[in-house]
C-alpha cells in the first residue's frame, strides 16, 4: 500500500471538461452532508465527502455529565437506532461502575436492540428507495416501521428517543401481554418485508441498475476498515453478535448474512436479510426470556466509579460495529467518551467507490453504504 | 429496367453489407486494435467487387457506354471502367492502411467508411439520374470528411477536415442548386431527360440552363480541384492521413470527372454552347498553377497535391476538345486510369515513409533510395510516369491527350496551343520530379536500410508492374479505354 492517495482520488482543478457539483447539504440526494463531486461528462472523476453539518460535539458534552445523565443525549446521533447506540456506552459504564445486570434485563435489551435495528433499517430502506426514485419504497417501509415504533413505545414509553438502557439493566419492565403483541406484530412485520421483494429487491429495473455498481472487493473492504452490512456484502463473515457475543447473544442462534458480490445491490440486500434475522432473534428471545425477575439493578442518580479505568466495548448496530471507548479518572463524569461509529468508518469508502462511477449511480452507491450523516458527525 | 445482377447493384450489395457490418462486428467483438482483421475483410470485399466488375466485362453483360438510361443506374462500360479504376485505388488505400492504421483507434469504422465512400464514387460513375448522382456524391463525400479528420489528436488532420468539409458542403449545396434549376427547366431528374430537355429548350430559358451547367461545373470543380476552386486542396491533402490522401487524390477526383462527363459535357453539347474555350482556359490555368506552385513546395504531400491539381488540368484538355475529337475523351479516360494508379501508389508510398520514418519534408528524404529501396523505386517510377516519361504508362495517356488536342485543331484553331501548354507543363513537372529523385538517390551518404512495410511493398510492386508493363505494351488498355469511351452523339438520339 502506498502513502499517497490513490491516483485521482483527490479533487482536480475544474476546467472546461470537469464540472464541480456541490451535492448537498441542501440537495435532495445528499442527506445532511455535502459531497463535492467532480464530473466529466457523466462520469465522476473525484469526490470529497464533507460531513459535519450536524456535528454537535457529543463527545465533548459527555465529559460534563455523569454516567446516567449522559444517556439521553448520547442516543441523539441516531435517534432511529437509539438503543443500539447506547448499548456499548452502557456496557462500558457497567464495567466502570462495577454493576451486574439481571438475566431478564439482558433479554429485554436484546429484544429492544433488535427491534430498534429493524426500525433503523426500515428508515434507511425508505431513503434508499426514494434515492433510487422509487417512491413506493419510501412509503412502505416508512409506514411499516410504525408497527415497530408502536411496539417500542409500548415497551419503553417513547417513540424514538427511548433512553431505555441504563447501566444495570433497563428502565422499566415489559408491559403486560407484551410477548403476545410483540410476536404477532413481528410476524406480521416479517410478512410485510417479504413483500418488498417483488416490488423492490427482485425488480429487474433495480437489479440492472445497482448490480455491478460501486463494487467493493473483499480486500478493499478489509483494507478500508469498513464494517456492518458493507463488510458482509463484500463476502466477509463478521458480525459481532456472533464473533464477540455480548449480553445473551451467545445463547441465541444468530445467523450472519453474507453476500459475495460487494456491489450496491448486495449492500442494499444485506440489511433486508438482517431484518428477517432480527425477527428470528426476537422470536427466540421471547421464548427464552425468564418470565419474571428484576430488570434493573438500582443505581443512585449520581453513581460513583470504582477508580480510573479504560474500557472499549463494541456492539453490532444497524450500521455495523459500534465501539465506545471510555476513559475514567474516578470522577462521576467520564474523562473521555469516544464513539467509534459505523457510519464514520464506512464513509472512507465513499470517494473510493464513487471514483469512475456514473453520476446516476451516485445516490445508490452513496446510500448503500448504510451511512447516517448525523451519526458520523456525532 | 434494372436487373438485380447488374454491376452497380451487386457492388452496393457487397460493399454496403461489408461496410455496415464492420462496425457492428467491432462492437460485437469488443476487442481493440485488431486492425488486420478488418483490413482483410475490407480487402476481400474490394477484390470480390473488382472480380465481379471484371466478370461482367468478360461475360459481355455490359452495355457499351450508354450514358443515358430510363433508370437511375445503368450498367455500362463507362461506369465499369471507372469502377475498376476507383476500386484499384480503394484496394491501394486498404492495403496501405494495413500498416498505417495499426496504431489508431476504431479501425473497423475506418475501413467501413472507405468501403462506403468507394460505393459512392463507383455509383457516381454509374448513375444516370441527378438524384441518384447527388446521393452517390454525398455518399462519396461524407465518409471522406470523417476519414480526413480521423486522426483526432492531430491538429492538422482536423483542420484539413474542417476545410474539406466546408468546401464539400458548399459544393454539394451548389450542386443541389444546379439540380434544382435543371429540374425546374426540364421537369425531370433523369439525365437523359434533362439533356433532351436542354436540347429542346425554350430560348428564353437558356440563361438559366447555362447557370445550372455553370453550377455543376463549380460544384464538381470543387472536388476535382480546378483552379478557381482549388484553395482547400493542398491543405487537405497535406493534413489528411496519407492513405486517405491517396483516396482523395486518386479516386474522389476521378468520380468528379465521371460526373462531369455525364452531365457537363453532355449539357454543353445539348445546349449547343461553345464551352470548349472556357474549359480549355480552365485546363491551361489549372495545369500551370498546379505545376508552378508544386515547384515551390517543400513538403512532398503538398507537392503531390499541387501535382494532382496539374493533372486535373491535363484531364480537362480531353474534356475540352471532346466535342471536336473522338480521341479527347479516350485520352482523358486513359489519363484518369493512369493517374489513379500513379497518384495512389505515390501517396501510399508516402504513407509508408510516414509510418516508418515520420518525415514528409523533402530535405529529410535524403538517401531514401538506400533506406527504403523498394518504396523509393516505386515513388520514382510513379513520378516519372506522372511526368510522362516514355517507357511508362503515363506517356501513352499524355500522347493520347495531346494528340487529341492536335486532332481537334483541325476544327478548333486554338486547340494546338493546349497541346503545347501541356508539353511545356510536363517538362516543368519533370523538373521537380527529378529534384525529388536526386534528393532520394544522389544525396546523403550513410543511411542504413530500414524495414519497409510489407503492404506498401505490395502496392509498389503492383504499381510498378502496372506502369512499366502497360507502358511497354499499352495495347489492352487502349482497347479497353476505347470500349469504355462514350460516343457523344449517342445520348441525344437514343
Amino acid at each position, binding site marked *: 500500500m502506498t502513502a499517497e492517495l490513490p491516483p485521482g482520488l483527490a479533487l482536480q482543478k475544474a476546467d*472546461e471538461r470537469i464540472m464541480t457539483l456541490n451535492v448537498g447539504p441542501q440537495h435532495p440526494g445528499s442527506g445532511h452532508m455535502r459531497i463535492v463531486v467532480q464530473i466529466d461528462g457523466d462520469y465522476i472523476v473525484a469526490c470529497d465527502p464533507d460531513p459535519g453539518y450536524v456535528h454537535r460535539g457529543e463527545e465533548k458534552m459527555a465529559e460534563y455529565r455523569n454516567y446516567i445523565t449522559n444517556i439521553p443525549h448520547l442516543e441523539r446521533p441516531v435517534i432511529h437506532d437509539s438503543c443500539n447506540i447506547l448499548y456499548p456506552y452502557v456496557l462500558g459504564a457497567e464495567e466502570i461502575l462495577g454493576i451486574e445486570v439481571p438475566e431478564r434485563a439482558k433479554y429485554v435489551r436484546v429484544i429492544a436492540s433488535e427491534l430498534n435495528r429493524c426500525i433503523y433499517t426500515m428508515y434507511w430502506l425508505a431513503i434508499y428507495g426514494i434515492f433510487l426514485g422509487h417512491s413506493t419504497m419510501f412509503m412502505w417501509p416508512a409506514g411499516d416501521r410504525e408497527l415497530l415504533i408502536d411496539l417500542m413505545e409500548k415497551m419503553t414509553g417513547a417513540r424514538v428517543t427511548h433512553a431505555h438502557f441504563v447501566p444495570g439493566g433497563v428502565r422499566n419492565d415489559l408491559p403486560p401481554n407484551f410477548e403476545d403483541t410483540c410476536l404477532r406484530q413481528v410476524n406480521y412485520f416479517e410478512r410485510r418485508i417479504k413483500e418488498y421483494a417483488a416490488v423492490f429487491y427482485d425488480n429487474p429495473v433495480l437489479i440492472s441498475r445497482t448490480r455491478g455498481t460501486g463494487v467493493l472487493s473483499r480486500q478493499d473492504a478489509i483494507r478500508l476498515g469498513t464494517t456492518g452490512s458493507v463488510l458482509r456484502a463484500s463476502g466477509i463473515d463478521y458480525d459481532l453478535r456472533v464473533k464477540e457475543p455480548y449480553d445473551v447473544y451467545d445463547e441465541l442462534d444468530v445467523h450472519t448474512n453474507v453476500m459475495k458480490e460487494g456491489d450496491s445491490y448486495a449492500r442494499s440486500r444485506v440489511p433486508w436479510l438482517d431484518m428477517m434475522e432480527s425477527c428470528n432473534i426476537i422470536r427466540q428471545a421471547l421464548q427464552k426470556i425468564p418470565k419474571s425477575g428484576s430488570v434493573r439493578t438500582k443505581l443512585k442518580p449520581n453513581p460513583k466509579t470504582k477508580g480510573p479505568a479504560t474500557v472499549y466495548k463494541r456492539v453490532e448496530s444497524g450500521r455495523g460495529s459500534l465501539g465506545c471507548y471510555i476513559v475514567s479518572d474516578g470522577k462521576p463524569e467520564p474523562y473521555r467518551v469516544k464513539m467509534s461509529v459505523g457510519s464514520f468508518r464506512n464513509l472512507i469508502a465513499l470517494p473510493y467507490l464513487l471514483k469512475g462511477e456514473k453520476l446516476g449511480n451516485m445516490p445508490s452507491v452513496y446510500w448503500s453504504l448504510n451511512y447516517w450523516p448525523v451519526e458520523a458527525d456525532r | 429496367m434494372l436487373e438485380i445482377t447488374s454491376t452497380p447493384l451487386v457492388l452496393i450489395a457487397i460493399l454496403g453489407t461489408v*461496410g455496415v457490418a464492420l462496425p457492428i462486428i467491432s462492437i460485437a467483438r469488443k476487442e481493440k486494435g485488431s486492425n488486420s482483421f478488418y483490413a482483410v475483410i475490407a480487402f476481400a470485399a474490394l477484390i470480390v467487387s473488382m472480380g465481379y466488375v471484371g466478370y461482367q466485362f468478360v461475360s459481355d453483360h455490359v452495355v457499351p457506354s450508354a450514358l443515358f438510361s430510363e433508370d437511375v443506374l445503368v450498367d455500362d462500360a463507362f461506369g465499369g471502367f471507372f469502377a475498376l479504376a476507383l476500386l484499384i485505388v480503394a484496394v491501394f488505400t486498404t492495403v496501405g492502411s494495413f500498416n498505417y492504421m495499426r496504431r489508431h483507434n476504431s479501425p473497423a469504422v475506418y475501413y467501413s*467508411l472507405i468501403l462506403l465512400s468507394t460505393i459512392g464514387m463507383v455509383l457516381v460513375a454509374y448513375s444516370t439520374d441527378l438524384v441518384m448522382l447527388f446521393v452517390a456524391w454525398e*455518399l462519396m463525400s461524407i465518409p471522406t*470528411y*470523417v476519414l480526413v479528420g480521423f486522426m483526432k489528436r492531430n491538429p492538422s488532420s482536423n483542420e484539413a477536415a474542417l476545410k474539406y468539409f466546408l468546401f464539400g458542403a458548399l459544393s454539394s449545396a451548389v450542386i443541389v442548386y444546379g439540380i434544382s434549376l435543371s429540374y425546374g427547366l426540364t421537369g425531370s431528374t433523369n439525365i437523359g431527360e434533362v439533356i433532351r430537355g436542354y436540347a429542346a429548350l425554350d430560348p428564353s430559358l437558356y440563361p*438559366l440552363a447555362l447557370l445550372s451547367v455553370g453550377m455543376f461545373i463549380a460544384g464538381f470543380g470543387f472536388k476535382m480541384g480546378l483552379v478557381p476552386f482549388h484553395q482547400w486542396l493542398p491543405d487537405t491533402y497535406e493534413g489528411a492521413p496519407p492513405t486517405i490522401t491517396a483516396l482523395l487524390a486518386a479516386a474522389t477526383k476521378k468520380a468528379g470527372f465521371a460526373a462531369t462527363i455525364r452531365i457537363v459535357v453532355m449539357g454543353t453539347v445539348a445546349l449547343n454552347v461553345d464551352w470548349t474555350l472556357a474549359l480549355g482556359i480552365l485546363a491551361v490555368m489549372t495545369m500551370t498553377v498546379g505545376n508552378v506552385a508544386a515547384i515551390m513546395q517543400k513538403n512532398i504531400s503538398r507537392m503531390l497535391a499541387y501535382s494532382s491539381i496539374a493533372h486535373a488540368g491535363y484531364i480537362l484538355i480531353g474534356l475540352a476538345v471532346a466535342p471536336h475529337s473522338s480521341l479527347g475523351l479516350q485520352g482523358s479516360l486513359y489519363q484518369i486510369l493512369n493517374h489513379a494508379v500513379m497518384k495512389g501508389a505515390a501517396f501510399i508510398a508516402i504513407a509508408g515513409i510516414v509510418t516508418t520514418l515520420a518525415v514528409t519534408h523533402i530535405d529529410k528524404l535524403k538517401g531514401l533510395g538506400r533506406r527504403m529501396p523498394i518504396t523509393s523505386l516505386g515513388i520514382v517510377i510513379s513520378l516519372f510516369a506522372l511526368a510522362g516519361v516514355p517507357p511508362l504508362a503515363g506517356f501513352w495517356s499524355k500522347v493520347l491527350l495531346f494528340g487529341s488536342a492536335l486532332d481537334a485543331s483541325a476544327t478548333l484553331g486554338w486547340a494546338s496551343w493546349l497541346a503545347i501548354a501541356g508539353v511545356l507543363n510536363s517538362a516543368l513537372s519533370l523538373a521537380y520530379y527529378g529534384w525529388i529523385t536526386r534528393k532520394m538517390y544522389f544525396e546523403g551518404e550513410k543511411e542504413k536500410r530500414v524495414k519497409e512495410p510489407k503492404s506498401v511493398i505490395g502496392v509498389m510492386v503492383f504499381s510498378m508492374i502496372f506502369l512499366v508493363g502497360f507502358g511497354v505494351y499499352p495495347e489492352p488498355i487502349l482497347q479497353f479505354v476505347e470500349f469504355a469511351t462514350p460516343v457523344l452523339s449517342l445520348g441525344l438520339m437514343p
Partner: protein
Amino acid sequence: MADAVFLALTVITIGSAIAALELRSLIYGSIALMGTLGGIAGFFFLLDSPFVALFQLAVYVGSIAVLILFTVMLVRRELIFKNIEDRRRKFAGLALMLVTMVALGAVFLDSGIKTITTDEPAAEFRDIGMSFVTYYWPALILMALILAGSVTGSLVLAKREDVENDQRTS
C-alpha cells in the same frame, strides 16, 4: 391573403437568415437559424407540400437544430465571439452578395420562368412514396448507407479519446 402570408414569411425567413449570421450570440444565432428553417417550411406549406414541410420541421428542427444548439452549448466559452472580420472583407462580402443577388435575380426575372404558372393540383404524398419505391429505390439504399456512415463517423469523431482508451465494461 396568401400574398400577405407570403410577404410575412419572406420577411421572417430572410430577416432571420441575416440575424443568424449577424447576431453576436451564437445561441440566438442558432434560434434565428431555426426561424429561417421554419420559414422555409412555411413556404413549403404555401406550395401545397405539407409532407415536405412537416419533414423539414421534423428533421431540421427536431434534429439539426438540436445538434447545433448542443454543439454551441458545448462550445460555451466562446459564446460571444470577437468581431474579427475586418471591414474590407465585410464590404467585399456585401458586394459579392449584392452582385449575386442582382445578377441571379436579373437572370430569373429576365428568363421565361415568369411564364410558368399552374392551376393543377399539387402532387399527393402517395405519389412521392410510389416514386420512392419504384424509381428511386437504389437512391434510398444509398441514403441508408449515408446515414449509417455519417452516424458511425460522427460517433467515432465525437467519442472522446480518454473514454475510448479506458473503456468501461458496463
